[in-house]
């Protein structure tokens, strides 16, 4: 008779009587039971005897390691799409991942031409970029009262109140329209470029 008992906080008298009688009869008939109980009588906690069961087999390894795909919003899929587009048309990721210090200027320059022509095409087709200020760089300009600090950044001797007189160092860039193609939902935006195998 194999009894398993859950550890109860406060067993009642009837329960104790039952267990005592069961232990009395089992101790007389079962030697292994006596071996198990004796340490308990001496106050050493034991693990209950588990019948020998072979260890369960390991779960089979997954056929392909594909963790569940996060949602497009979590992934910032549109940013990845733009990067994939720049890699496809201009090899931008290849260029940036390469180590530039070990190559001569001429080699870097030749690669830069390829990246430039491809990425420029992407920018022309999917974005409309315009300078924030249309004046030529180096010209003297006047920053008016109430200017938008996100559009115009002041450097140098920044004291007093607008209007300021200064010279334009960088005309800035603003995207006036964005029309990027979107990736189909069934495909993974994290794959920027597939590996190419020639057969």
């Amino acid at each position, binding site marked *: 008779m194999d009894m398993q008992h859950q550890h109860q906080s406060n067993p009642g008298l009837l329960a104790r009587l039952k267990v005592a009688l069961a232990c009395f009869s089992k101790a007389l008939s079962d030697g292994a039971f006596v071996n198990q109980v004796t340490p308990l009588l001496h106050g050493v906690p034991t693990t209950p005897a588990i019948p020998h069961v072979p260890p369960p087999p390991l779960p089979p390894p997954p056929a392909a390691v594909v963790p569940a795909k996060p949602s497009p919003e979590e992934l910032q899929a549109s940013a990845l799409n733009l990067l994939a587009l720049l890699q496809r048309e201009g090899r931008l990721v290849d260029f940036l991942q390469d180590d530039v210090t070990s190559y001569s200027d001429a080699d*870097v320059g030749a*690669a830069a031409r390829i990246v430039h022509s491809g990425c420029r095409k992407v920018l022309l087709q999917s974005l409309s970029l315009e300078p924030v200020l249309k004046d030529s760089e180096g010209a003297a300009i006047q920053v008016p009262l109430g200017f938008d600090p996100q559009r115009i950044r002041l450097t140098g001797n920044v004291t007093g109140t607008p209007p300021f007189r200064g010279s334009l160092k960088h005309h800035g860039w603003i995207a006036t329209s964005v029309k990027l193609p979107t990736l189909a939902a069934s495909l993974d935006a994290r794959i920027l470029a597939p590996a190419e195998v020639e057969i």
Partner: protein
Amino acid sequence: MSRYSIGIDLGTTHCAVSYLNLDSSTSRGAEQTMLPIPQVTALGVVDAKPLLSSFLYLPNANEFPAGALALPWDPSRSDWVVGEFARSHGSKSPTRLVSSAKSWLCHAGVDRQSGILPWQAPEDVQRISPLEASSRYLSHLREAWDHQHAVEDSPMSEQEVVLTVPASFDAAARDLTLTAALNAGLKNVTLLEEPQAALYAWCESLGERFRKHARPGDVILVVDVGGGTSDFSLIAVTDQGGEVELTRVAVGDHILLGGDNMDLALAHTVNQRFAANGKRLDPWQFNALTFACRAAKEQLFANPELPHVPLAIPGRGSSLMGGTLRAELGRDELNTVLAEGFFPVTTINLLPRTARRTGLTQMALPYAQDAAVTRHLAAFLTRQAGALARHQSTPDSQPKSFAHPTSVLFNGGVFKANPLRQRVLTVLNQWLAAEGGQPAKELEGADLDLAVARGAAYYGWVRHGHGLRIRGGTARAYYVGIETAMPAVPGMEPPVKGLCVAPFGMEEGTQADVPPQEFGLVVGEATRFRFFASSVRRDDKVGTMIEDVDWNNDFEETAPIETTLPSTGTSSDQLIPVNLQAAVTELGMLELRCIEKSGPGSWKLELNVRMKE
């Protein structure tokens, strides 16, 4: 539901669609609207572009993930893809790519309705016919239109569609193009020749001002050199009772020579320098070199001051800086290869070189053997020397050795380079000056890429009675081959006579009865006629019999006519006397019928576009 006139340019390398609202009372002027065409540009990405690349890729079952080739109107598409991605991926796997379907459509040496493309593809690649490929491009355009105009409920099948074909396409190729359109679900289709479409686009963009540049007595030479083909036409401006009239008087042959040849020539020249340095380019790199040469060529033509342009060919691996090959394209090289190679200064009487084919040749498209466009132009003008005779108000004092144009309209991406246009004009004016003619001037203001589609849409509006229509009728005279009865001589084929059934310039909507000849057709059996066309014989009337058409240079043989007349219930093998009748439909298609002489029977003869035996 609005009514539109839709013009479709079904090109060898690109297709374009332009449209015009027929309900408006004015033409579009210079504002000629194009339809943006959504197509798969990368796996899973659909982008709308102004042109659809005429390439079709047939992927392997395992090649792409599910849903990668989905289109907004067909999310489950996976067997084939058309457009930009097909072109760019197909250049890496050319055995699965269908390209130049249009050139195959007019190649008489193959069966154009059976699955032969991709040409010489391995066993497991599914193959389609040139007819099917053209039909798929057209249905993609139709689906793109329907998708954009879904709200308006004006599907393309209900609109008037004008589809352009090269002027050099013969009756069989035009027939196939029309069949492709019908298979694609377009019901209301008219065919228009591409050089005429280019002239229509120019007329529309200029509006009424075109009359200043096209006066009665002018002869306009349209030179159309696209990506893969060259096409020439002559259009005369005449005065008919006080009204200006445009008449197409001559068309040239279909020459497989174009901008792609020029890019290849530049790439081979640069490749020789790599080979001299011991570097061998693999096919992918050579392709990238061709592409780089095209971009460099455009840059050199656009900026006359640049002495050379650097070329960079990327490697295929991920190390861009380590794998890039560098070269340079100099202006001298550009001039030597393009200007001297493709537009050499030549005299009017030098014909294009045709090398004799020795022994085995690979069965493929019949590319032009002489790359000189100016020599082909000289051959065209010489051959058509008599074309203008009937359209001139005063006869010439001395006969001319070639047709003298007074102005030139350029079309095709090749002529975006101003130096090449000037080159053609220089050579032409040398020929004119040598015979005492006035120099020709250029008709300016054409949009070289989009003119054909735009002109086609405008033609749909012109057909409703607005603007000026170019007359012309059929571009060729057509003849039926008749075997002569001769005693059998071993080794000698009996000469074939030609009976004219459709004269040169037969107008649309007219028909001609061939004068009674004793023809007997056997009912219930297949009957076969040889069929010939001539683009130079203008004076032959219906019923004229020409003695020997087989070896005469004026005639070219087109697809034979085959027909099996169904038996009418009486005994088969009966010989029925018939008359022939030719008609040109409103769509510009030639139809031949056999009309029973003493009875109600009428049978249509079909052009057999299968292989010539």
